[in-house]
Each structure stands twice: as structure tokens, then as C-alpha cells.
């Protein structure tokens, strides 16, 4: 498990505090469910809320230059601490109309391709990349399939893995399934305190594993997809604290806490040669998992 970035400053203390709470989350269904509710809170800040606070100068880009534009993914470049920074984020909507427009944060192939367009630019112009992950999953639709949803996710992961520039992925809300991981193959993967990261949404798991749509709470307790657990498993490198009560209570403070982690981490990553960054990034994802070895046959 990686502890490379979380030992310093407030983040480090915070992680330990969360780790202390782990025994509760292991057994208490309620705590995990609370985290899931917070991760999906309708007032939770979305990428454009963070961008507005971290980068007042920001140019949003639109379209994948192939077919269309996906409003569920926002992408662009901005000025961050005196240098250019590229951001790709998964954007949910806040009111009914906006939610439909953003397709409930479910990304389409065009969204991932817009992201790849930006990654290509990052590589050529040597601009670091931050991704903000918040999705119930990639959009499940027949036309999205025909336009290559699976391949878009796979290629997005491959392109991110190969980027020579520093990359940080932040799970700001719910990170569910390959639709989230498509933007998650970064040098550092960090989760906000109340964010979740899982192979599938609790509702999806409930329907498939329990064959009953009403078992989401049980599913959540089984997956334990909290930031603290993901940190323990090595899936997250650090946990960024949120304001008391959750990020939705105080946007400015939530952005300030994220800013502290991001600016420090990008600086750290920039100090490494790009070949070393790529080596470490590969190694980070190469070792994740839990297997058992048997001897003999």
C-alpha cells in the first residue's frame, strides 16, 4: 500500500484519524451508507464549482472533433498558481433540467474522446493534468455502445497511463465502475473525505448480486467503498479532508483544502523526470490486487 504523499501536513493526520474509524465502517452499515449519501449529495460541489475557485482564468473546450460534445464531461485549460493546468471532470447537474442535460454524470464515448483530445494537447505542450471523478458509471445505451463506449474507456486509460506530464486524479464524489477509472490512471489518485470509489454502484450491485433492487444498503456495506478503505487498499494515495459536515456545506473551504493538496502534489511530481514518473505510475497500478499463491499442484 502506498503512503507516499499522505504523511505530511494536515492530510496525513487526517488519514490516520479516518483509519482509526475503520473498525466502525467494517461493521456499521450506516456509516458506509452515510458516506454514499454525502458523496451523492445534490449540493455537493462539481468540477465547475472547483474550477471556478481554483482557476478564475479557465477556457472550457467542447467536442471530440469526431462526432459531438458530451456535457457529462467538462474539459479545459486554466491558469493555476501561475502556470497552465488542464482539467477533465465529470459533471453532474443540480436541478432536474441540468441533470438531464448532464445525463446524470454518465459519460459518453464523446466525453472520453474529448478528454483524450486534451491529453494529447497536454503531452505536446507539457501541461500537467488533473481529473475530477464523479460518476455513477459510463452511460449504458445502445448508441453509446455502437459509438464505442468500451474502447473509449480502454483507450482513455491507456493514453493517461502513457502521458509524460504529471497527472493527478481526484475522486470528488462517487467513482463507480470503468466509467470512473477511465479518468483515474494517474500518478496520484486521491479521494475527498466523503467520496466513494467502487466497481459498481450499490444499486447496480443490489440488482445483480442480490437479484433485488432494494438491497443497495447491504451492497454498500459489502463493498465498503469509503475513502478510508480505498486508502488502506492502496487504491487511493491520500484522503483530502472536507469541511465539517461535508464539501457541500462550504464550497470555498472545500476548494481551499483541495488546492493545498493539488498544488503541493503537482510540484512534487514535476520534480521527477518524466521517465521516472511513468515508471512509478506503471508500478502503482501493476501491483494493485490481492492474490494467494499455492505451492505444488
Amino acid at each position, binding site marked *: 500500500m502506498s503512503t507516499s504523499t499522505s504523511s505530511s501536513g494536515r492530510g496525513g493526520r487526517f488519514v490516520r484519524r479516518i483509519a482509526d474509524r475503520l473498525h466502525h465502517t467494517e461493521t456499521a452499515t450506516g456509516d458506509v451508507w452515510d458516506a454514499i449519501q454525502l458523496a451523492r449529495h445534490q449540493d455537493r460541489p462539481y468540477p465547475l464549482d472547483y474550477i471556478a475557485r481554483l482557476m478564475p482564468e479557465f477556457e472550457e473546450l467542447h467536442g471530440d472533433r469526431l462526432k459531438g460534445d458530451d456535457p457529462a464531461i467538462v474539459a479545459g485549460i486554466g491558469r493555476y498558481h501561475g502556470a497552465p493546468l488542464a482539467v477533465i471532470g465529470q459533471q453532474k447537474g443540480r436541478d432536474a433540467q441540468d441533470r438531464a442535460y448532464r445525463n446524470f454524470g454518465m459519460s459518453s464515448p464523446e466525453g472520453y474522446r474529448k478528454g483524450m483530445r486534451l491529453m494529447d494537447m497536454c503531452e505536446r505542450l507539457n501541461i500537467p493534468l488533473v481529473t475530477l471523478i464523479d460518476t455513477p458509471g459510463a452511460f449504458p445505451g445502445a448508441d453509446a455502445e455502437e459509438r464505442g463506449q468500451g*474502447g473509449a474507456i480502454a483507450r482513455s486509460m491507456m493514453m493517461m497511463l502513457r502521458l509524460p506530464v504529471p497527472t493527478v486524479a481526484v475522486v470528488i464524489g462517487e467513482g463507480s465502475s470503468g466509467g470512473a477509472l477511465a479518468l483515474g490512471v494517474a500518478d496520484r489518485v486521491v479521494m475527498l473525505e466523503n467520496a466513494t470509489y467502487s466497481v459498481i454502484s450499490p444499486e447496480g450491485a443490489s440488482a445483480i448480486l442480490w437479484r433485488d433492487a432494494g438491497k443497495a444498503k447491504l451492497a454498500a456495506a459489502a463493498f465498503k467503498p469509503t475513502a478510508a478503505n480505498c486508502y488502506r487498499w492502496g487504491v487511493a494515495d491520500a484522503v483530502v479532508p472536507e469541511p465539517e459536515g461535508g464539501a457541500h456545506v462550504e464550497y470555498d473551504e472545500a476548494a481551499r483544502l483541495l488546492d493545498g493538496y493539488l498544488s503541493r502534489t503537482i510540484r512534487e511530481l514535476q520534480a521527477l523526470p518524466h521517465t521516472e514518473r511513468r515508471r512509478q505510475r506503471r508500478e502503482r497500478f501493476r501491483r494493485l490486487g490481492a492474490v494467494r*499463491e499455492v505451492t505444488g499442484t
Partner: protein
Amino acid sequence: MSRRPISVSIDRLRGKRPDAGTARRLPGDERSCPRCQSHFRADEIDRNCYVCAVCDYHFPMTARQRLDHLADDGTWQEIAGELRASDPLRFVDLQPYTERVRSAEAKGATEAITSASLAIQGQPCVVAAMDFGFLGGSMGSVVGERFARAAEEAVAQGVPLISITASGGARMQEGVLALMQMAKTIVALDELGDAGLPFVMVLAHPTTGGVWASFASLGDVTYAEPGALIAFSGPRVIEQTTREKLPADFGMAERQLEHGHVDAVVDRRELPARLGRLLAIFARPAHDEAQSLASQLAQNGSERAARVAQALPGLSRRLRGRPGAEDLNPHPADDA
């Protein structure tokens, strides 16, 4: 069980995807085709590559059967066979995960993927074959790890990697660690690509979810078996989420060919010949290989050179077997 007379209208069956689970097991080692109900003895099916001789339905195959059928003389050497599933989340749904694994193992396979080095029609390669019969071919930590080891073995030997997929996607019972296996397979393919080695995909029924959204989408050449369902989201999920009515051939190999997501739909009986031909096309003349090695090694200190150097023993082994290769062996001292 009564034996019905066989009467099949192939046309009517096209576009209809039978559920493999409905293949009836008959007494006395016989199997029935779930699509046309024809009866076969087990050895007949085996001789016909697990394809129905009447309607061409492709039966599911285990990874071992796959490797036996593809490998020259039926011989292959397993890679990372000692790895077994663990239960990092102590996961329980309707049944504890450990029990699910135990009953899957009891059926004979050790995991949902088997990696092996072998030769297909004289062409050395590494094959990672999936087994839908083992927990729906789901990708957990062992599948990710065995796939990665297969790619690393291909790099070490300097040979192409082939994967045959049959999977419902990520293994939910391993939670977010199963999700991370998608990224692990991408890392493995990145290393294979850096070593200049091709990756060939064979999509069997079904290839869905996190497997389709990771390595299975990244073949340099991608074949699909007839009738295979290939999709990120399965038809049920789509119908539940969007209330769309899906066409009967949704996600089927033939339709994926139309939409540009696969290169060819290949009958399983032709697979060894097709793969053998493809690997022969990809094989480099010995002098090219030596030259490209030399030039790559010249970029001293680069990641690529390190990787190629790692691949040298295997590569020179291959070179030695070819006419005139002795003169070009880039590592003459490597005779051990």
C-alpha cells in the same frame, strides 16, 4: 429424456442468441445444441472444436480446451498457475465469496483465466484464455495478475500475446480491487507495446463490462467468434436504465463488425489457421529484428532499451533457430 427428431431452419435461428445454460446434458456423455437441439457425443463436439455440426452454434469452452485446441501437438506451458483468488473484502452477498470460489474451483479450473506459452502452427506465442464457467469469467485480482504475467512472459520471450475472452466483466466480490485490474491489464499492454510486440484479441461469447472496457478493446488485430455478445453494458442493464427496446442482434459480433469495432468474425474451427497466418505475417525477418534491436539499444538509458535488453534471451533463442541467424545474433555470448 425423449429424443426429438432433428428439424432445423437455420435462417430462422440467425440473430437469435441462445442461452448457453440451456444446453441440456444428456445421459451417456451426450450434449444437445441449445440452438437447434441436435444431439452429439462429447467426442464429436470436441473434434468439431465445440461447434455444432448442424447450425454452427459455438458452445462455451473452458480455457484448457481452448489451449489444447490451439497449441501445436496440444502442448502448452502454464504461466502463473499457482495464483488463486483471495477474499480481500470478506465479501458476502447471497453466499460468501470464498464459497463461490471453492465451488468454482471444484469444477476443475483454478481461475477464470489460464495463461500459457505455446506455438500455433509453428509460431511461438503466449495465450491468455478466459473461462466463462469460472464465476462468469469475471476479472478479479488473479485474472489481472495472470494476464499481466502473460504479457510479461511474451516480452521476455519476444513473442506476440493473444487473448481469448469470455467474461461478464469485473468480479464484483473483489470490489474496487477488481476494478483496478482493468488498469493493470492496460499497464501490461503498454509494456508489450514498448517491446514492439503485437497483441491479438479473440472475443468469444460473452465479452462485456470491464473486460471489454480494458484489454479486450485494445487488440492490434481483433477477431470475434460468431454470435458472441460484445458490449460494455449488457442488454438487461441498458433496457432497465434507458427503457430502450434493443434489437435481437444487439452487441453481437456480426453487428460489431458493421460498426467497426472488430476486424473479422472468425469461425472457431478456422481459428488456429487464421492465428497462425497472422502471427507469421507479424514475424520479422531475423536481420530486421537484429537491426531494430541494435538501434533500440543505441538509445542508451531509455526505457525501451532496458525492456529490449530484458527481452534479449528469448529473442536470441528465436533467432538461433533461423537460417543465417548465427551471423546476426546480437548477443553471441548468450549461449547459456
